[in-house]
């Protein structure tokens, strides 16, 4: 499974919705129930599943799924 597919899985679990199909340009407006409260759960789930930690600055500058994905990839890359 690619990183992007894994990310999609996490979204489906957190928002309890098997129909979610992420695109890099997906934003909070496109996913039902993605508000500031569920966002925390999402970030926590991503950090746990990928065993990474985001910096405060990164968390405040994600504009869409693409930004989030790039940051995850970068962290996984640097660990290899």
């Amino acid at each position, binding site marked *: 499974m690619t990183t992007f597919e894994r990310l999609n899985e996490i979204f489906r679990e957190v928002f309890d919705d098997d129909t979610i199909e992420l695109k890099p340009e997906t934003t909070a407006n496109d996913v039902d129930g993605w508000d500031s409260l569920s966002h925390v759960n999402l970030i*926590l789930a991503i950090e746990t599943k990928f065993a990474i930690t985001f910096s*405060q*600055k990164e968390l*405040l500058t994600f504009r869409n799924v693409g930004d989030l994905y790039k940051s995850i990839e970068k962290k996984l890359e640097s660990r290899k």
Partner: protein
Amino acid sequence: MFFNSIEYFLFLPAIYLIFYFTPDRFRWIVLLSGSIFFYASLMQPYLLLVLFGVMLITYMFGKLIATRSEEKEKKRLFWIGAGINLAILVGMKYLPFITENLDLLLKAIFGKAVIPVSPLIVSIGVSFYVFQAISYLSDVYLEIQEPERHFGYFALYISFFPKILQGPIERANTLLPQLKKPYEFNYDNMRSGLLLFTWGLFKKVVIADRLAVIVNTVYGNVNAFTGLSLIIATYAYAIQIYMDFSGYTDMALGTARLFNINLTDNFNRPYLATSVAEFWRRWHISFSSWLQDYLFKPLQMRMRNWKSWGSVIALLITFFISGLWHGAAWTFAIWGLLHGLYMAVAVLYKPLQKKLYKKLKLNGTKILKLWKIFMTFNLVSFAWIFFRAESLRDSMLILKKLFPLDPGKVDIVNLYELGRFETLILLISLLVFIVCIKSLNKLLKSGTYWRFGIRYSFYLLLLIYILLLGNFGYSDYIYMGF
């Protein structure tokens, strides 16, 4: 000089004409000097000094942050820049409150006055442009905004006269590019800008200032009124503060539109919100989104390991500060905490609520929606009691008269200080507001919504209505005090 004053009705056409006849590359000078003149008309020379200080410091730190490549250094500079801005705000607004409370405490300990209590100073506008300055520095630090190199445009971004007194609090990436665009006369902007201004004037001088008389009578002498009168006055205040502040915002947006500049709309039918959280997405939007981006989110993310409880604490802190932003008094702090509490309870109660609605098969029903709107409006109105009460003691007295409800009939004679005729005008005007609001929104969007004759008759009638029934003696805006 306020929007509903004769001076402003002279100032606005004058500055527009000068602006119009000036070549594009000098237009910022016209707007900037107009803005400074506008702010100077408050006749508080030290305020100009404060404004200039905020402009210069924020401009310099914005540029400095961008020159550094090391993250740590950027962060340090951001905190110094934001810290100086905060210190200015605290010095202007909170010194009397802090020294007064400290004085009380020290008196209790030592039995005599130890420190001098700072006198109150006028700080109109400061909380608005300081917040805007902090958002600018944050955005530069987060690298979502290039620092502005041109001091003139930057100064105008901070001080643009339609928004300097009461906001909207504008982000750099939405306002700065608009200030630099070449100007071309646009008939539709001119038409909808003037209409929006007039509509805001109607809300302010016809409705809000009449409601103010009822509210001031009751809240000015809480002791003399029974529970029912207090309830009426509180609902009246809920409507008044909306008409006052959204009326001001309409006038600000209308003014800016004459110069082809779109400011952020602060209101989206807030009293139709179905939850307190939604209310805050519809009320004073430029302020609540500021709180969300620069206070709530950073706090929430820092405490993310505590899950829902982290969000709860972040909410309480955010709204406590939001309360104090409105004024240095315990009543505002309680108002803010109440809103924080409402939302914190909602966060914790949400899973249960979901199950409950499912079981009762209420999801998606109209009755549930109406119930939610009703509850939200009442929760918000209840909180307004603390916001409006003149002291902590007054607000406690009101609560005592409301729970349990102090019977006694409505003190009509006292309550309607306004007089029967004026009360009738108020009720008719509220009806006019409700009947016209939909058409007005369509009319603002499209100049051909009604036929020419009807359109111009409407404009004319609205204008005559305001001129005849507007209360131009009043120059108080609620949010001006914040």
